[in-house]
């Protein structure tokens, strides 16, 4: 396979790398670190790149955000809009509006590439949250949060919270009708917190709603506070991944003490770079081809106007849905009324996030598993955890649907009241049903050991001379052993791996190479045959 030219080309390339490294090393003495860094191994599984999608979306957000910040004016001062034909949005000519809204109109109509930057920024935020949600699901369903990675799970959730708040503050900055409506809802939710609510709301807004202090404050929050928090948390997140190294799916040649995959340089850097280019391309395409938040149609915000079908961005939808579904109960205690929005707006997300933050501890109690893990679980092997995760997804989906009731009711030709009622029951029924189906599916998959989506790997059918059939590739032995780890990963084509790299420095894995020895992990094995808390 390796011809003379290829070998020469490889040597030439390595020479350049060496020259570059030498130049840096002469000055910084950093060769050791760089060499180690460039040799770092990244597992070859596509789902590990979704976290990177999130990271690169953040890069796009920073770049486009800087551009928007050049033109945005964080001021609630009242101005009269005077566009000239061809430069500006004529249907709003002569209207009173905040300076902030005017500046966003200018970004959309007057600033060169302003609108495409604004739309890329908004689409990037939408995709950012989708990638984070998917990444969170992967970590959850594969048990990647287990010891020793509980801290990174917490950091990840803090990132999720920061990005949600960052997204909401960005949604509120244009000061159009949707922004103002969203802020009005949040003002009421803050006010509903018992005892301190009113003071807190007036402190945050600086006055009664809407006031003129919030826009400049939100700008500081959106521009500095949360971006810095995200950068800090992201750095910690990545440093911990670096320190603790990646997890990986079990598979041939993979053990708790080694990592197989691609070196950072050159393979993984090229993969990652390709993904970065695709993300820029896709977000550019979305920003250029699909309109998002046409603020000029919503018009400037006035506290006495509102639009039907006002919704938050999708990732806040479940909170909006929670407020919409909560029954009209009222509570009085110690002479104080606990205002209704407190329960769906503060308590529900409070409980949800508490459970999420505590999940590594809960999981440890459920599975009585205190051992450190570097190999992942297959979701089917932990049916209860998988059922909890699927149930949670059903819960969020139900609430998100509730946020779109005005659209749904129209599309389904269903009375609003019945839709609300169905979704209210759905909050309890949907998670139970979805969880039960997931649980049963996991058990069935454990038995058949088939991949739920893909065709079984291997599978060359051979007919022998005496008429018997058997399949090649079965010797890999998934049907024989019930831990089934042999088929948990895609069938790598084998020559994709030059060698098994020892990423631990203890030299134990090099010899493992292609032996593809199945190592039964005590912990993983125990989880299958061990006590199952769900009572199966």
């Amino acid at each position, binding site marked *: 396979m390796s011809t003379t030219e290829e070998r020469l080309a490889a040597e030439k390339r390595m020479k350049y790398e060496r020259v570059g490294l030498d130049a840096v090393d002469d000055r910084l003495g950093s060769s050791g670190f760089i060499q180690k860094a460039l040799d770092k191994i990244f597992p070859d599984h596509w789902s590990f790149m979704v976290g990177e999608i999130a990271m690169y979306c953040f890069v796009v957000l920073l770049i486009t955000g800087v551009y928007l910040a050049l033109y945005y004016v964080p001021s609630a001062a009242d101005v009269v809009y005077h566009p000239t034909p061809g430069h500006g949005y004529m249907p709003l000519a002569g209207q009173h509006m905040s300076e902030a809204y005017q500046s966003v109109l200018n970004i959309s109509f007057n600033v060169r590439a302003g609108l495409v930057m604004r739309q890329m920024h908004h689409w990037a935020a939408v995709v950012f949250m989708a990638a984070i949600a998917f990444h969170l699901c992967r970590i959850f369903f594969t048990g990647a949060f287990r010891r020793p990675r509980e801290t990174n799970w917490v950091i990840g959730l803090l990132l999720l919270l920061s990005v949600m708040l960052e997204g909401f503050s960005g949604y509120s900055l244009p000061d159009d009708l949707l922004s103002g409506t969203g802020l009005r809802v949040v003002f009421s939710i803050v006010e509903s917190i018992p005892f301190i609510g009113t003071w807190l709301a007036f402190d945050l807004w600086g006055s009664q709603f809407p006031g003129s202090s919030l826009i400049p404050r939100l700008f500081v929050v959106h521009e500095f506070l949360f971006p810095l928090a995200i950068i800090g948390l992201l750095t910690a997140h990545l440093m911990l991944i670096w320190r603790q190294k990646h997890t990986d799916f079990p598979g041939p040649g993979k053990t708790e003490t080694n990592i197989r995959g691609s070196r950072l340089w050159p393979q993984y850097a*090229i993969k990652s770079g390709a993904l970065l280019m695709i993300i820029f391309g896709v977000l550019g395409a979305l920003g250029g081809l699909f309109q998002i938040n046409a603020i000029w149609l919503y018009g400037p915000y006035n506290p006495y106007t509102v639009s039907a079908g006002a919704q938050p961005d999708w990732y806040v939808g479940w909170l909006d849905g929670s407020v919409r579904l909560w029954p009209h109960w009222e509570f009085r205690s110690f002479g104080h009324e606990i205002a209704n929005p407190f329960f769906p707006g503060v308590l529900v997300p409070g409980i949800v996030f508490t459970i999420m933050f505590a999940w590594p501890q809960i999981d440890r109690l459920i599975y009585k598993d205190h051992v450190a893990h570097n190999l992942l679980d297959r979701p089917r092997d932990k049916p209860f955890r998988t059922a909890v995760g699927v149930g949670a997804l059903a819960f969020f989906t139900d609430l998100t649907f509730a946020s779109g009731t005005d659209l749904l009711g129209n599309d389904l030709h269903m009375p609003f*009241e019945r839709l609300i009622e169905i979704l209210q029951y759905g909050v309890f029924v949907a998670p139970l049903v979805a969880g039960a189906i997931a649980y049963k599916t996991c058990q069935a998959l454990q038995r058949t050991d088939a991949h739920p989506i893909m065709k079984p790997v291997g599978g060359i059918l051979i007919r022998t001379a005496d008429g018997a059939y058997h399949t090649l590739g079965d010797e890999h032995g998934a049907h024989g052993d019930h831990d089934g780890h042999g088929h948990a990963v895609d069938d790598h084509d084998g020559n994709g791996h030059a060698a098994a790299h020892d990423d631990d420095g203890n030299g134990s894995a090099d010899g493992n190479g292609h032996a593809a020895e199945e190592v039964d992990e005590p912990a993983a094995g125990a989880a299958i045959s061990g006590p199952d808390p769900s009572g199966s």
Partner: protein
Amino acid sequence: MTRTLKLLRRVLRGPASRRRILAGPAAVMALGVAAFAFMAVTGTAAQGANAPVSTNASDIAAGEQLFAAHCQSCHGVNGVGGTNGSPELIDAGAAAADFYITTGRMPLNATNNQALRHHSYFNATQTRDLVAYIADLPAINSAHPLPRVGEEAFNPTSPGIPTVAPLCTGPGTPSGCVTLSDGQRYYSLNCAQCHQAAGAGGMLSKGDIVPSLHNASLTQVAEAMRVGPSPMPVFGTGQLSAKQVSAIAQYVQYLHNPNNRGGLGISHFGPIAEGFVGIVIGFGVLMLASRLIGNRG
């Protein structure tokens, strides 16, 4: 077919061999750059005409025939009202007749249904005749009085078909013209609560829906404000002047094809629809991309 399947399998299962992996991303990048340059069209507002009500006796006679065939079974002889709860039409007036007929809301299939937009059951001549007849109902009934069914009329001066003032387009436009800016302001004050900021429509309680305004003509919008087709309230002359009604009607007309800078408008349904597009198209493509390159060793 097999090629498509193969490609699909490659996407789902990952590649069998090493290939140059930068060509695809570069193509996507190029597409993105091209899209970056793409900006969409602007809309223009059209101007509608006004149908004057005919007082021609033969038109009224033809209208009576049509009324007997299509309306009388519910609304009664000479529009005195029906026993099934259908309202009397004696004071309905030309605007209501024209609105309900041209928007296809009448005749209604079942009386407990909300009257919704439909293609009109009558052609232009038939509509003219029916409107002429219904506008003439007060005179007909005072000449041949029949007992009224249902409540007494509350609106002695039933609204005629309103005229909609033109948009101010420049120095040459006649006085009395209206601006889109005024229309936007009055629209968001009076209409957006139910009809949504971009006229996409919405929901009310008890299964009533708020129709989208994207098919409503200038005259129909003005008529609807004056008539108040249930469950919409009447916006009488005390609430909105003729000029304000015209401005709103012109703005609704503009919303049929608004300035859609920035690309496909996704029906202006708002953030939930946008989230769907972002997740399915944006994140979906990125998932496929990471699936394609992620498993390469």
